[in-house]
């Protein structure tokens, strides 16, 4: 799977960081950093939750 971020939409709420801290982080300017664009299958549930709970719906999960 592959993570896509729509940077026009992200406001840096950090909900994804709460859901999947192994995949997402915020830098010191509260900008989203994707730590791993191709996360391991074991993280699928967490990534799906991050996509679902993003308050601005800026995340998408694509299949490779």
């Amino acid at each position, binding site marked *: 799977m592959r993570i896509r971020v729509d940077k026009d939409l992200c406001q840096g709420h*950090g909900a994804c960081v*709460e859901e999947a801290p192994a995949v997402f982080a915020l830098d010191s300017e509260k900008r989203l950093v994707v730590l791993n664009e191709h996360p391991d299958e074991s993280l699928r549930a967490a990534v799906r939750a991050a996509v679902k709970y993003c308050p*601005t719906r800026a995340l998408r999960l694509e299949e490779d």
Partner: protein
Amino acid sequence: MNASLLSGGWPLLGHLQELRKHPIELFWRVREECGEIGELNFAGNRVVLLTGVEAQEAFFRATDEQLDQAAAYPFMTPVFGRGVVFDATPEQRKQGLRNQSLRDSFMRGHAEVIARETERMMAKLGDAGELDLLDFFSELTMYTSSSCLIGKQFREELTPEYFKVFYELEKGTDALAYVNPYLPLPVFRARDRARRRMVELLTGVFERRARSGAASGEKRELFDVLLSIKNPDGTPRFPVDQITGMFISMMFAGHHTTSGTAAWTLIELLRNPEFGRRVVTELDSLYADGGEVSHQALREIPELENAIKEALRLHPPLILLMRKVVYDFEYKDWVVPAGKLVGVSPAVSNRMPECFPDPDRYDPDRYREGREEDAQLFAWIPFGAGRHRCVGAAFAMMQLKAIFSTLLREYSFELAQPAESYRNDHSKMVVQLAKPCRVRYRRRVRAAEST
């Protein structure tokens, strides 16, 4: 090429009177007559209205440097006061999110506050009676917003007079401000009187807090800190007038919006009793084992959430979002030159039949898995979209879930007037529920107690 001008404008005023009487019909007329882009004239202010998913996406994706939000709402300046910004830049907003009360980690505490405030309002209701939806939810959301965003002690200073004064301020947003926001008209005089009264009320609050020592002790809150900041010459950095402006602007975004949505959620559930029953059944079973509202309101309550979303779709609290064009805005073959305004109407967008089948029908099931009509980011736009999407959206949803979790388990409601008589008052730029808007209530007999 330029967008074509909508027909029917008056000399000088243009479409202003139509905007003040039937704004939503006016916006639809643009779409029908001019297509996805058409121009309106508000007393010399040219507003190019964009409709349809594609044009709206271009609007929402434009940068701040190109489309400026702050300059687009002249009717707000006298409400907030000069020197108080309408909205922060996206960078400041992110900054705000970092330190501030809208952050995810504060939500649980907020949910607890909201449940308690709803209980305090319910304590005044008694076993049965009739209430005015506008008054009830305006008062409640005034308490919840001030407690969550400003401070718990500050909230205790508020009385029902505050929401009445606030209502006067909201009513002062007449579109005649496009001619001049300081015209000597009764509506603007009442607005300015209300603002002066708000300054008086807050001055009293701060004097009391200074006398009691609360303003300087460990318990000091946001405004106490701001008031204590001094210029090099010893005068206060933020005079009370400016603090009042901050208070008004902080409360504004979350007040008429949330209170109107709460009212419409309830009205629609009563007009559509099948969905009303589903929501109550869902809440009863969710809380059957004594769960706390502060916990549950942060989690999924699907039937209730869908009911709230559908109320938002049909009755969006903001019906026109605007930006000022800083440098020429191009869309397909059209150019909107710098200096004009561009706008998008959530009231039109949320009912576009190509995105929302049977658009006028109340149907919370359109958000269920498989349909998810709210996933159309640039069509389902009660909270706007893109950079300026409402930063309080998650807070608002949580707040509404906490309010109804508390209210609907304790009381049952019924319409106190014909179902079709509930409507919004669109004569001001801030949309309010039109009075009368009354419902009857009765304390529920809980199943466990009745057996």
